[in-house]
Structures are given as structure tokens and as C-alpha cells.
């Protein structure tokens, strides 16, 4: 049974995070762990086409990588390297014999990657590198950052983890809510980066939405009792389900009310809605769960006109209670306009301090248009245009502005 190199790559990509995480635990060093996993990959490329796929590829990679690392450390230990000897001691522990509630090392690794002592861009890069198994150039391209910058960011973060002694463990109950919030924020940032940059002209560009969903699934599998983790996964799935309808021939950006709902991905919606129901049963509200619930209400409407805006407004009120940001207030104002009319929505918007946030001007323009205040609507579209560089959004805004009645 022949196995191709790209299939082997696929296994490595899927198993990378788990293998590196396990090796970090018994080697106590991220760089040595990564090197060992890469060496194991080279061995697999040599051997698997001859021997066929091992029964448990993940375990094979971990064992091979571990043996390689131990060999290497033995060689170095003979050169009286204190650290190598220490790591060798760890290496002799049986990896299967772990105590404590968390059996999967990936959870430790993600909390290390998203430690608050690391800046957010470093958290994101490390998480994608170590848990996602992505190569540095792929991550750099996805975030439109020079490769050298991203490589530097990762090297610096790994050095800090080692030198400053950032621990490799899941935080205790007291710290967990804050620390988990950082982990979820990293995954959400990766998703949003992919979601707002849907300019299909760069085909080699990595799909960050897929990556974020993959990470969220891993987290949901590892922390099935954390409702916000499930909430985030649901939110990503429900948002992503609309992707096929977000663009149309000649329309680089189609907004929710105008989307062809038959294009929405039913499987993702079903999965997302089931997660939202699971969260509701637990009844421990949090911002991701509420946003997921809002997305679920949208996805339940067969047509835009049948949207249950009253329910959405109730959910935005709840969101305002636990995450009172101006952006949430803006979205609430949009829901309010649907329930009570554009006048009420406009009044709510005009109290917001969000002048440089272009969606505010887009929402204002739409409400003014519905109120027949065409000249003011045109000015609001101009304000929005002045604040966005995204080509798809600009095309959309120009079109909207042109469609105002009685405008050139």
C-alpha cells in the first residue's frame, strides 16, 4: 500500500500540536520538542512508503520524536550540559503516566502560548505555529506580515517562555476565567482576520477561518465543560456557514439581509445551533455564547424579513450587560431600528463615541436612507468610505451611495 508524501504531511499537520505538546512536557523545551518532531517527520517520509502507515501514526510520531530527542540529549549530556541532563531525567518518565485532570498536553501548550506575559501578536503566531503546525511563511502570508518579522516574533516569544519561566500548565480555577479569555480571544482574532480578508485573489493564502475552527474544536474537545469555549465554536461555525453567500458575481460583499440563504452551509448551522442549545441548558451566559445565540437566531430565519429581531434585541441587551462596548451598543442600535424603526436606531447611534469606526457610518447611512434623509445618508456613506481601505467594502459603499434616490 503506497503512501504519498503529501499524505504523510497531512498526518503530521494533524498530529503536530499533540506531539509537540507531549514532547514539551517531557523534554521541558519547546525548540528541542519541535526539532524532534521534524526529525520524526523526515524518518516517516523515508520509512512509511516502504513499511506502510503505522497503526497509530500519532503515537508513532511521538515515540520516534521522543527517542530521537533522547539520543540527541545523551550526546549533548556527554558534553556535560546540565540542562540536557535535566531534560534527560524528565525524558525517562513514562509519558502515559500522567496525574491530574488534564490528559491532553495541548491544553497546557495553548495556555503557555496565550500567556498574558506575551503580546497578542506573539500569542497568535505561537499558537498557529505550535498547535496548528503551520510553517512560519504560511502564517506570515496569512497575516500579511514580512516573513522575517513573524519569524522574529516567534523566536523572541520562545526565548521569553524559556528565560522568564512561563509555566507549562493549565491555570488553576482562580486564574482560569481570565486566562481562558485570552485563549478564546486569540482564536477569535485568527478567525476574524480570515473572515474580513476574503479577497480570493491570493489563492495560496491560508484559510485562517478553517484554522480557527480547527483550534476551537480542539478546545471544545479538551474543555467540554466550559460554556464559553462551546459558545466560541458555535459562533465561528454559524458565522462561517454564511461564507458561500457573502460574495456573488459582481458583488464582492453581500450583507446579511441580501444574502441568498439557500447558499448557507446547513451542516455548519445545525452543528452551531446544537451547540447554542447546549449552552442555553447550562445557563452560564458569557459574551461568546450570546453572540452565538444571536447568530443562531439569524440562521433560523428562512428569509431576512422573517428574522426574530425582538429576540435579537433581547440578546443584545444581555450582551450589553456583560460586555458593554460601543461596538455592541452599535449592533444593538441596528437591532433596535428593526424593532422600533430607524428613528429609534438613529437616536441610539448618535449617542455613541465611535466616530472612526466605519460600520457606525454605514449603519447611520442606512437608517437615514430609510428615513428619506437622502442628503445626510450620502454624507454618512462618504464618512464610511473615508475610513475603509478594503476594496470589497468600498465597492459596496459606492454602490449603496449611488442607489440613493435622486443622487447622481
Amino acid at each position: 500500500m503506497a503512501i504519498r508524501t503529501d499524505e504523510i504531511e497531512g498526518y503530521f499537520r494533524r498530529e503536530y500540536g499533540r506531539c509537540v505538546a507531549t514532547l514539551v512536557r517531557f523534554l521541558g523545551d519547546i525548540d528541542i520538542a519541535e526539532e524532534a518532531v521534524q526529525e520524526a517527520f523526515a524518518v516517516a517520509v523515508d520509512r512509511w512508503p516502504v513499511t506502510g502507515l503505522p497503526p497509530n501514526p500519532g503515537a508513532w510520531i511521538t515515540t520516534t520524536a521522543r527517542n530521537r530527542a533522547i539520543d540527541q540529549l545523551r550526546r549533548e549530556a556527554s558534553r556535560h550540559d546540565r540542562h540536557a541532563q535535566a531534560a534527560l531525567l524528565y525524558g525517562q518518565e513514562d509519558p502515559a503516566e500522567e496525574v491530574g485532570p488534564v490528559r491532553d498536553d495541548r491544553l497546557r501548550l495553548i495556555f503557555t502560548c496565550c500567556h498574558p506575559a506575551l503580546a497578542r501578536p506573539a500569542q497568535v503566531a505561537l499558537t498557529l505555529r505550535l498547535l496548528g503546525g503551520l510553517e512560519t511563511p504560511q502564517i506570515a502570508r496569512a497575516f500579511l506580515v514580512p516573513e522575517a518579522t513573524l519569524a522574529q516574533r516567534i523566536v523572541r516569544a520562545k526565548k521569553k517562555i524559556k528565560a522568564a519561566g512561563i509555566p507549562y500548565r493549565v491555570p488553576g480555577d482562580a486564574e482560569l476565567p481570565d486566562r481562558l479569555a485570552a485563549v478564546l480571544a486569540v482564536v477569535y482574532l485568527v478567525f476574524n482576520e480570515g473572515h474580513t480578508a476574503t479577497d480570493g485573489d491570493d489563492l495560496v493564502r491560508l484559510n485562517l477561518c478553517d484554522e480557527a475552527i480547527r483550534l476551537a474544536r480542539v478546545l471544545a474537545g479538551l474543555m467540554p465543560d466550559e460554556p464559553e469555549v462551546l459558545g466560541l465554536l458555535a459562533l465561528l461555525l454559524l458565522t462561517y456557514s454564511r461564507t458561500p453567500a457573502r460574495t456573488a458575481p459582481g458583488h464582492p460583499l453581500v450583507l446579511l439581509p441580501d444574502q441568498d440563504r439557500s447558499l448557507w452551509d446547513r451542516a455548519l448551522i445545525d452543528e452551531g445551533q446544537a451547540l447554542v442549545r447546549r449552552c442555553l441548558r447550562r445557563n452560564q451566559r458569557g459574551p461568546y455564547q450570546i453572540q452565538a445565540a444571536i447568530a443562531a437566531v439569524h440562521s433560523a430565519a428562512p428569509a431576512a424579513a422573517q428574522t426574530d429581531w425582538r429576540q435579537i434585541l433581547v440578546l443584545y441587551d444581555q450582551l450589553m450587560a456583560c460586555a458593554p462596548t460601543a461596538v455592541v451598543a452599535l449592533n444593538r442600535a441596528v437591532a433596535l431600528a428593526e424593532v422600533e424603526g430607524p428613528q429609534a436606531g438613529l437616536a441610539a447611534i448618535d449617542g455613541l463615541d465611535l466616530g472612526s469606526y466605519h460600520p457606525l457610518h454605514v449603519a447611520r447611512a442606512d437608517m437615514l436612507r430609510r428615513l428619506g434623509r437622502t442628503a445626510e445618508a450620502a454624507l454618512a456613506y462618504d464618512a464610511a468610505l473615508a475610513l475603509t481601505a478594503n476594496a470589497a467594502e468600498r465597492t459596496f459603499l459606492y454602490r449603496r451611495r449611488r442607489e440613493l434616490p435622486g443622487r447622481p
Partner: protein
Amino acid sequence: MKQYLLAVHMVEGEEPQSEDETQQAYKDVDALNAQIQAEGAWVFAGGLHPPATATVVRVRDDEVLTIDGPFAEAKEQLGGFWVIRAADLDEALAWAAKATRACRAPVEVRPFQDDAEG
């Protein structure tokens, strides 16, 4: 165990705190010092006189120069520090959180290069 420097940064030109507040800060720092010692994390600590009292010594062309300090003409200067022992950064950060409350100034946490023995 690792050792960490908890450096207290004073910002020049900031509104001076009231006398009561200063007295309370001294008391809080004393209480914290006692706690650090009681928990075996204590290595050393001290408060410094203002930067105007500093003198810089350096070698140029094999000659020792003595210059009226401080070294950096910055608005932020070291006001004092702790050196503590901690198992990892989280433990050090927990002490730093207590330290910044006690001394009412930002605290920078830096690891020492060599792990402390034992």
C-alpha cells in the same frame, strides 16, 4: 527555583501622593516584605534615593570617568526593587501584583540569567 527582579518604576513629574498615602505605602511595603520572607521567597530588597543622587562611572580610553548621574535622562527611573525566588513566572507575577499595589508604582518583572540552586 528561579530568581526574578521586581523593579519599581517611578515616573518623574507625576502628581506626588499625599503624606498619608505615602505613609500607608510604607506600611503596605513592610507588610509585603514580611510576607515574602515568611513564604521563603525573599532574596533582597531595597528602596533607592532619587536619581539626582546617582553617579555614573565608566571607562573610556582605559581611563575611569566619574560623571554626575543618572545614566539615562529618562522620565522613568528605578525607585527600588525586590529580588525574589519563584518557581515560575506566574508565581513571580503574583508577587509583582502585590508589590505594585503596595508601592503604588508600576513593577517590571525580569528573570535573572542563572537559575538559583535548590
